[in-house]
């Protein structure tokens, strides 16, 4: 475990299991490190309790709160920051240009990593499209702004997350052709933006589940397995990290069973 990074982004489409994997990984790493679990959506009471009992710290950030905190620090006044954010013009800009809020969120999370050198940050990050908007905002706003304090902050963020020792992006996907193509496109898009280190995690893999394929199987399951094998063969280089389908319904049980499997991720 000597290669543990400082900041992990877990992204992918909605419903692929980002939160499940992010919390399993956080709990796994919390055995040996100080972990902060960061998310924009509340993962729910059960998962929060699970994370807390593993020793991980939790930080649930909303875009608005994140922006307010950042602004307050920059202009050294919480009152003015709240006031600015409440102004109709700011709200309108905020709604119409989502990249702005996402950039501040990214800055917030990166600063958390920079200011806590002894901790590992697991970020249950926004889903695919927002993830690209968030990372593209680094370059976009640098171009728009040209100069000033914000550009310096943007450079600090970029430098930190493009260093491979510091950060790692995981794109979670499911074993269907469309989902995998989309995962690969997201990986390519992020790598094209900058020197980010991106890896794909195939979640819910039936081939990795403990199914004896020589024994009789119902037709639909056999077809599912065959389709998945085809996809795996076609994309063997991109899909080195696989997590098995866990035949359970309760999310906490799934996280528990997935936890040891996430060792391969770090």
């Amino acid at each position: 475990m000597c290669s543990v990074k400082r900041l992990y982004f877990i992204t992918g489409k909605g419903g692929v299991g980002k939160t499940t994997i992010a919390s399993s990984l956080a709990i796994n790493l919390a055995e040996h490190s100080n972990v902060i679990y960061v998310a924009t959506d509340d993962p729910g009471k059960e998962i929060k309790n699970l994370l807390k009992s593993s020793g991980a710290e939790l930080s649930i950030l909303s875009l608005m709160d994140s922006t307010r905190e950042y602004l307050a620090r920059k202009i050294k006044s919480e009152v003015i920051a709240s006031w600015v954010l409440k102004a109709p013009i700011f709200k309108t800009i905020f709604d119409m240009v989502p990249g702005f809020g996402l950039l501040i969120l990214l800055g917030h999370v990166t600063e958390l990593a920079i200011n806590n050198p002894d901790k590992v940050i697991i970020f249950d990050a926004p889903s695919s499209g927002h993830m690209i908007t968030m990372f593209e905002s680094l370059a976009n706003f640098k171009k728009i702004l040209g100069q000033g304090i914000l550009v310096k902050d943007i450079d600090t963020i970029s430098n930190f997350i493009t260093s491979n020792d510091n950060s790692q992006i995981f794109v979670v996907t499911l074993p269907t052709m469309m989902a995998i193509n989309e995962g690969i496109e997201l990986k390519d898009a992020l790598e094209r933006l900058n020197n980010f280190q991106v890896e794909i995690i195939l979640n819910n893999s039936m081939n990795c589940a403990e199914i004896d394929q020589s024994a009789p199987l119902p037709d639909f399951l056999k077809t599912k397995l065959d389709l998945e094998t085809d996809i795996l063969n076609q994309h063997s280089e991109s899909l080195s990290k696989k997590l098995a389908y866990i035949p359970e319904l309760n999310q906490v049980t799934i996280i528990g069973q997935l936890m040891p499997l996430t060792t391969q991720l770090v």
Partner: protein
Amino acid sequence: MTANEKQNIPSKRIELFCGTGGVGKTTIATSRALHLAKSGKKILLVTIDPSKRLKEVLGLNEENAGDVETIFLNRIDQSIKSGSLDALLMNPKSTIKYIVEKTKAKDMLENQIIKILAKPYGGMSEILSIVELKRHLNENKYDSIILDTPPGKHFIDFLNSCKKINIFFDNSFIEMFKYLKKPTTNISKSLIGTLISSGAKKILGYLENFTGKSFVEQFIDAVYTIHTSKEIFIDAVTFSEHLKDLSTSNWFLVTSAEHNKPTETHDLKVGAQEFLHKDSFIILNKSVQTHLPHSCDQYSSNVNKVINSIIEKEKCVYNDLLTSGIKTIRFQDILDSSPQVHVTELSKNW
């Protein structure tokens, strides 16, 4: 309600498909388009989702994004002898070009901020897609426009915030920007009022501290330029009114039996509350119900565990959807790797 029962839902001028990512939204929207086009309707299939799964399903060229492409139905299903549908991958840049043609607001092409925000992931894609959709609706060329929206609540949030966009086109607001652009002594009382209440001047002052003067100037220019095309934007925003209208729109919320986050459909429903009417449907995609074996006796305990977990998961999702009060339709999981086969098979559900 079992899978593969024909639905016979009458088509409307706008058919909107939304749902979380990876549930098969694009494939299902395309299957609806294929079904309606086959029956002779003139169809425009539009994807606003920047991830553009549609290009994979229809074999479109990304380079043509922004232009309407005619797709012969036999490209999807070879057994269909004739007929076509139109498809469009949204491209913010082409929409800006259209706005400039219409309004002669040439500055829009030059402004650095607008240029950057109009990139596919730059953040202006929603407002521009509404402009594009309203344009096609106004042209009245199609019986139905079928919309494949970006995943999740995002698009709904955008529709909800449409009302706020009006703030940009409030006359006193723009007068204020004119003033900020070129301060004059002739400042009206109402303008002073707006300046104070919106706090715009102070904010721009703060902004300048961070960003330098050139950004603030460009920003004011951007707002001003957008304002010169205000008729187009104000008309576009009325698109959301059509979506609330039972006689104009059908709503389809798509989810999947294998989805890991069933609560998202609820969030979607709550978010879209203001829009949903009697002709709103939930589609539970990738249903395994009809694929299930009659008896599980011959399988090992591990296999049975997997089968049971899949059955139970679908049951949970379905029961949960029943409580939503919206009619839920099941679409069977298509076990094939070809997107065209998926669309062809799914179109039989309609």
